[in-house]
């Protein structure tokens, strides 16, 4: 079965904003990504679902420069790109909330939000002594967290290690949403969140979509996925099994395809 012949419910006449072809990544004998295809279209919410170990996070890491694929190509707005580090992907406007959050526990919330893109003071000290504009970064960090509305954080200088799991996730999400300019990718952003907080993250994702940014949402939570996704990419054994639309299938069908109990549809 040739993957490219599948119906992926792509919008007609629109080119993908982010695309991967024939990605491969091996860890010794383990094939984490096995000739995977991926397309994300402008303005959509694409959910990626799959069993534990299916290779979802690996694919996301390959797309965002955190991992170098052994083979295959990645295209951003139709142009071939090779991100040699997460920094390169970020510079291209792709922001990611990684599954392990990628926060520095001992650094403050504000420091974490601006980690790797710190802002220097204006004027002499900033220019010649590389002094950071800490007030600005604090103020902005607070603004982003408030916009998220999911944190009751008193102190923006608090080390991240003193936050609860859900609050940490909030910081990572705030960071991605604040800086994403082309694509926002979230690997299980609601995994550590309660019902109320998850709701806020879903609303936030819809908000980001309204701003015109496409989002990739990896999740094991089927109700969430079926509620907000435009298309659902089902990942199985290191590759894309198929892409479905939530209105065409039930959650149990999706899970059955995911686990291999049901044949992936060929339209």
């Amino acid at each position, binding site marked *: 079965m040739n993957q490219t012949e599948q119906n992926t419910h792509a919008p007609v006449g629109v080119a993908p904003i982010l695309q991967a072809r024939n990605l491969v990544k091996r860890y010794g004998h383990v094939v984490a990504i096995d000739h995977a295809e991926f397309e994300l279209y402008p303005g959509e919410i694409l959910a990626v679902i799959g069993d534990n170990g299916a290779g979802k996070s690996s694919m996301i890491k390959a797309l965002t420069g955190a991992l170098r694929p052994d083979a295959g190509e990645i295209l951003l707005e139709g142009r071939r790109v090779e991100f040699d580090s997460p920094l390169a992907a970020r510079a291209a406007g792709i922001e990611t909330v990684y599954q392990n959050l990628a926060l*520095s526990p*001992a650094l403050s919330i504000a420091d974490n939000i601006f980690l790797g893109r710190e802002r220097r003071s204006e004027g002499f000290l900033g220019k010649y002594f590389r002094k*950071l504009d800490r007030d600005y970064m604090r103020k902005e960090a607070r603004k982003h967290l408030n916009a998220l509305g999911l944190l009751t954080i008193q102190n923006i200088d608090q080390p991240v290690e003193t936050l609860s799991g859900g609050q940490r996730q909030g910081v990572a999400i705030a960071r991605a949403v604040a800086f994403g300019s082309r694509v926002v990718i979230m690997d299980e952003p609601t995994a550590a969140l309660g019902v109320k907080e998850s709701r806020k993250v879903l609303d936030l994702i819809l908000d980001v979509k309204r701003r015109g940014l496409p989002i990739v949402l990896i999740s094991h939570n089927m109700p969430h996925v079926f509620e907000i996704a435009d298309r659902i990419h089902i990942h199985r054994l290191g590759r894309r099994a198929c892409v479905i639309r939530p209105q065409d299938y039930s959650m149990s069908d999706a899970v059955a395809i995911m686990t291999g109990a049901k044949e992936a549809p060929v339209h």
Partner: protein
Amino acid sequence: MASTSQQAHVSFDEERRTPLKRFQQFLHANPTTIPFIVLALSIALFSAIVGGRFFHPFNLSLVLQQVTIIAILGTAQTLIILTAGIDLSVGAIMVLSSVVMGRLAVLAGLPVPLAFMLGLLVGVACGLLNGFLVARLKLPPFIVTLGTWSIFGALNLWYSASQTIRQQEVAEAAPFLQFTGTAFNFLGARITLGSILMLIIAAFIWYLLNRTAFGRHVHATGDDPEAAKLAGINVTGTLIAVYTLAGFICSVAAWALIGRIGAISSISGATANLDSITAVVIGGTSLFGGRGSIIGTLVGALIVGVFRNGLALAGADSLWQEFAIGLLIIVAVAIDQWIRKVSA
């Protein structure tokens, strides 16, 4: 309803915390309090043992001069330990740099500024080598610097031919190298320019760590390198920069060393390694990386100086100084370990 029961639960937790547990939590949030407590205790201890002699301005000047070298190497060591590394070669780099400066200026007759610069360059090169081995080849810092300690030490013995350049010779040919030994009076105590140099270096590194992006990256690299990489930090570059900068600071310490002892000897500074690591760890910088402070290191260096000086004043054999420093570092690491457990 739900929130009241939750609050009740929280206060219940609060009550069950023992004072020791609370102290542990306090230290976790304020790690720099430890060195201040230990410093106060050690001053109290030695003033009880040796009496007023300890507080004599002359003696305090002596402590300060001893502390100068430990503190300069300690700032270099702090940078490294913040990245969850360790540098066992700081003392060897310092001595090698001082020998290069001295032999080139005094025996080879090179212009003193050139000899001085070449000495600094040797420190930078040594640090760069450590950084390359740790960051690029991904070898464990402990083993790398254990090896380079030995290598730099051997180079030093070979290059110096185990000769000492006497104080008089240095004073005649290259007085600039002894410049850091220049002393002035301050409130009855004799302060050397070397101590001022130490303060300048410490202030510079403090600024770098706390007020620049590079400092954030150093902390993040030591805290969780994987997370730092995903957050877009150039971890390899940061590590190389840290080891190189540390090498440079060690070569500046060489200047302070020459000022302190006047002569240039390949066997000076033998205790510098352990002293600097002890100062950093007792100063509240975690061997696990990511947390620490320069101010803590300065206080830690004072503690080491007070111990060495106090024991000497008390008439104890110098072997007991080594014994005490050894004990001190183990206790410091144990405390660090204990504080780290707080979140678990």
